[in-house]
């Protein structure tokens, strides 16, 4: 039978092809990171040595990382980052999930205007409205606080869109069952929608946390005291006025700051694979 002889062969080709594509993608994705990490562990003098672009000769881990840790309070920056990102993420999930639930599962007038509003909010570049927000916060004397750092991001239109799109696929009947079980919408949200949305919440968390972790634009506007400074400020410490960046430490700082994000992803990743219906309905 032909299928017998050709099938394993064909699937071998298919799987090596798909592996090839994956590794191509991974190389593309990781090339800059490989370079960043390499540069962070080697003597800055070597970074521009074309002949050994990817082969460090002498390591300078202590120097580069030591300088980062000694010259900048990068750990306290990170603590700020953790506080701010956690607050923002919690608020975004807390505001977007009910909203997305209403959009996906409740019947009410004004669904379209609401969606339009969310898309509009997505269209508006933050740079455009940062100044009015800054003035508003100044007016209520809330600048230079954690509140100022999180206030503009308490609701995320991206989250609303992603969540509502995802929840559309969630079976209505399960929610109906919960309503018959006298669950309030709060309970439905907390005990049914929240766990069911974990894959998309996990995905969104990754976006939200990486974005706000790396955000420098708003913190530089909203705060003036270094106690509240975000992690990425640690990177700027190694960029010099007239161009001679301290490459080794710069890359070390960048690596340090990226590490927690990889951790966040690893935590979130566990959730990606879970399916949505999972035997709930026939």
């Amino acid at each position, binding site marked *: 039978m032909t299928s017998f002889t050709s099938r394993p062969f064909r699937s071998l080709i298919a799987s090596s092809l798909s592996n090839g594509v994956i590794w191509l*993608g991974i190389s593309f994705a*990781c090339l800059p990171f490989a370079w960043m990490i390499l540069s962070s562990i080697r003597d800055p003098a070597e970074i521009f040595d074309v002949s050994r672009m990817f082969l460090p000769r002498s390591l300078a881990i202590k120097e580069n990382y030591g300088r980062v840790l000694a010259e900048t309070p990068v750990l306290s920056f990170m603590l700020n980052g953790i506080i701010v990102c956690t607050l923002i993420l919690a608020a975004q999930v807390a505001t977007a999930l009910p909203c997305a639930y209403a959009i996906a599962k409740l019947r009410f007038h004004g669904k379209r205007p609401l969606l339009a509003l969310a898309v509009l909010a997505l269209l508006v570049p933050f740079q455009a*409205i940062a100044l*009015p927000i800054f003035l508003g916060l100044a007016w209520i004397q809330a600048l230079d606080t954690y509140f100022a750092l999180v206030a503009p991001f308490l609701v995320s239109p991206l989250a609303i869109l992603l969540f509502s799109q995802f929840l559309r696929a969630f079976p209505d009947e399960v929610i109906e069952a919960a309503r018959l079980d006298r669950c309030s919408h709060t309970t439905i949200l907390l005990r049914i929608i929240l766990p069911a949305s974990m894959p998309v919440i996990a995905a969104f968390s990754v976006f939200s946390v*990486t974005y706000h972790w790396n955000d420098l634009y708003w913190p530089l506007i909203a705060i003036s005291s270094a106690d509240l400074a975000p992690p990425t400020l640690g990177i700027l410490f190694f960029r010099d006025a007239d161009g001679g960046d301290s490459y080794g430490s710069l890359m070390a700082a960048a690596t340090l700051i990226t590490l927690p994000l990889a951790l966040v992803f690893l935590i979130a990743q566990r959730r990606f694979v879970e399916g949505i219906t999972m035997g709930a309905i026939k």
Partner: protein
Amino acid sequence: MTTLAVGERPSLRDSVAFDAVICISPAILLLVAMTLLPLAAVVVLSFTDYQLGGTDIHFIGIENFMRVGESDDAGRAILNTLRFTALVVPASVAIGLVLALLVSARGRLRRAYELLLFLPLTATMTVMAIVWSLLLHGQIGPINVALKAMGLAPVEFLSNVELVLPSLALIAVWQQSSFCFVVFLAGLSAIPTEVYEAAALDRVGSGWERFRRITWPLLAPTTVVVLLLTTIKAFQVFDLVAVLTQGGPQGATDVLLYETYLQAFSYFRIGYGSALIMLFIAFVGIVSTLQMWFARRRQP
């Protein structure tokens, strides 16, 4: 027993509507406070001649908008932005989709692959721009070193007027495809395994047909969202330009948001900058509305 008049009915709807109001009101209030009101301020400013830090302000009607219309820079910025978007969006979505499909079909190594492919999303552009400028360096960048090793002529990615925008697009694709990858991964997880099982028995077990007939249609809603988000993000390109090229050479990478930023915050022309932003929003709004409209029309 009398039949209830229809007029008494809406209370059920009311209660549902009331619950909906409670669900959406925090989001709405915050959207209004943190986006709509500031945006309103921008709208107002766009009709004035306000200078940042200035003390006087005059309404000048639509003069700012007229000036945008006359400005070559604005036209060029729009064109560049469109070209950039046209380069970035299809590539990012396609790469993200293909990788998500392939990776989700993997067994043991899947999680490691995911982590590696997710990395670009974590990048801080301030640093990555430096890294990329080196990777794409005309003489000593690894890519050119490789080209030279193969006996080809090196490519000046970032200073060639023709190539600079595609080069920036390449970097954007690098990051955006990672974003698409993660969203698609989450979207794929929402497809019930049972459907795939039924498909396997219907001989749609793998490959193109399974993608076309099962995965793609079921992923369509995710794709619409991804397209929308990627488009908006591409339109909002700013960091890359600010760090790598500042719009040069010869304005080849001068994009809308960068132009706006220059006007408002480098030249302090808040009024004019606001007008530009308004046009930007209108423009992106139209493009994404069209996009969603097409998407919706395609799927009944």
